[in-house]
């Protein structure tokens, strides 16, 4: 036993002269509510126009209010009444009215797509009958409802948004390209500056080296002059010998060696004044240290590196043996 009070729609239904008409009225009002661009007054007038020959005998206002609130229980009750007490002809005419109401403005809203199909199922109208009826009434075939839950739907219905988005993306890309260009230029400038700096440093180093050499030469010269002074006291017959000695000294005097020789000496870990036996000893030691066979147990890369080093050492030694004396 329920102690709940009668709902507004139940009261309307009990007071109605024809329950089927009242139930139909509610369902048609539901269809109208889901048709978007329409005011309440227009809705009521349209509903009154369609249901002119109904025999319910009560005000439309209360039913409109119930439909407006989308009261699921009232709609369920109306559907049950309709299913229970509707004849075949009556159901076709209801379908007719529902389609007319739903497509008044030429389009069928998404919600009404589903509502019309629900009514068709409720009233036992087959899909073929429904599409024929729809075609007769509107002159267009009944298409399936569009799927609002996909991106494709919004691409069709909201193209401005996607245009705007594409434009923004293009602008962003341009800005990025510009920024990259600027960065590349900056980098080029930086490199130039660095090169300039390096060149200057080299020049400075060369100057310093030249200065040092000049100083050494002068020193040697002074020493020689001193020797000369001391030798001035010696006999004249020694003069020839002296000349010879000077000539030898001149030849032995370390003038700037070619670059490759000093590099080859550096490879063997020697400095400028090394003689041939030093070079040979250094070469033997380095060759023992860097021979690729020593790295046999390690990775292939290690062996490759060692053989490259060994090659360099051997080249340096060969070069020195040919040219150095």
């Amino acid at each position: 036993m329920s102690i709940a009070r009668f709902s507004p729609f139940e009261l309307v239904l009990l007071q109605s002269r024809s329950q089927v008409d009242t139930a139909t009225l509610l369902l048609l009002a539901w269809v109208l509510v889901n048709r978007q661009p329409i005011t309440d007054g227009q809705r009521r007038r349209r509903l009154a126009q369609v249901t002119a020959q109904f025999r319910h005998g009560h005000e439309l206002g209360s039913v409109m209010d119930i439909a407006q609130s989308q009261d699921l229980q009232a709609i369920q009750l109306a559907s049950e009444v309709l299913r229970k007490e509707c004849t075949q002809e009556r159901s076709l005419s209801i379908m007719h009215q529902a389609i007319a109401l739903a497509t008044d403005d030429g389009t069928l809203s998404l919600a009404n797509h589903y509502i019309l199909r629900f009514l068709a199922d409720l009233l036992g109208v087959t899909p073929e009958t429904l599409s024929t009826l729809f075609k007769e009434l509107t002159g267009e075939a009944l298409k399936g409802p569009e799927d609002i839950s996909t991106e494709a739907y919004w691409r069709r219905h909201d193209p401005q948004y996607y245009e705007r988005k594409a434009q923004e993306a293009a602008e962003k890309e341009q800005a990025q390209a510009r920024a990259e260009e600027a960065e590349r230029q900056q980098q080029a400038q930086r490199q130039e500056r660095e090169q300039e700096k390096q060149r200057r440093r080299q020049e400075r180093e060369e100057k310093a080296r030249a200065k040092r050499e000049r100083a050494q030469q002068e020193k040697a010269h002074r020493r020689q002059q001193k020797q000369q002074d001391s030798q001035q006291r010696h006999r004249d017959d020694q003069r020839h010998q002296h000349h010879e000695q000077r000539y030898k000294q001149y030849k032995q005097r370390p003038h700037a060696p070619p670059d490759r020789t000093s590099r080859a000496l550096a490879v063997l870990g020697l400095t400028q004044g090394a003689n041939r036996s030093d070079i040979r000893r250094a070469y033997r030691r380095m060759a023992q240290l860097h021979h690729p066979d020593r790295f046999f147990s390690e990775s292939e890369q290690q062996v490759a590196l060692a053989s490259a080093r060994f090659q360099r050492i051997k080249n340096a030694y060969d070069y020195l043996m040919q040219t150095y004396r």
Partner: protein
Amino acid sequence: MRDLYQRLALSPNATPQALQSAIEACQHNALKQDADAVLMLPERRDAYDSVHATVSDIGRLRSRLGLTHAAHWQGSVANDFSLPPDNAISRHDELVDRVSHAVTLYNRWRRFRGTWLFIATFGIGACAGLAAGVALCMRLWAA
């Protein structure tokens, strides 16, 4: 039409933050793209929500009326919006029950009205007489 909320395991009134995180965590790329396009913009979400509410209502109606396997209810809509049948009984039967209950009460009232009226009148008269007697006694006592 799919139920994006159900597929993302969310309720239809989830906050935008919850939606965002659910979409980011989604493994299904097509669903992710669609949900991102439909639910992350407020006006689109409103449009989707209104259709979603109507279609869920229809799904509930269909499950209560036994129309979940009908000719016009197929594809992803039927998959996503067909609810399991709840135990709400037929509204029409309930209405008939309530009306008959009200009728029984009314009839009982009508049948016993004479008796009840007599008893009520007698009771009220007795109470009034008693009250009057007590008042009289009080006054005599005071005098």
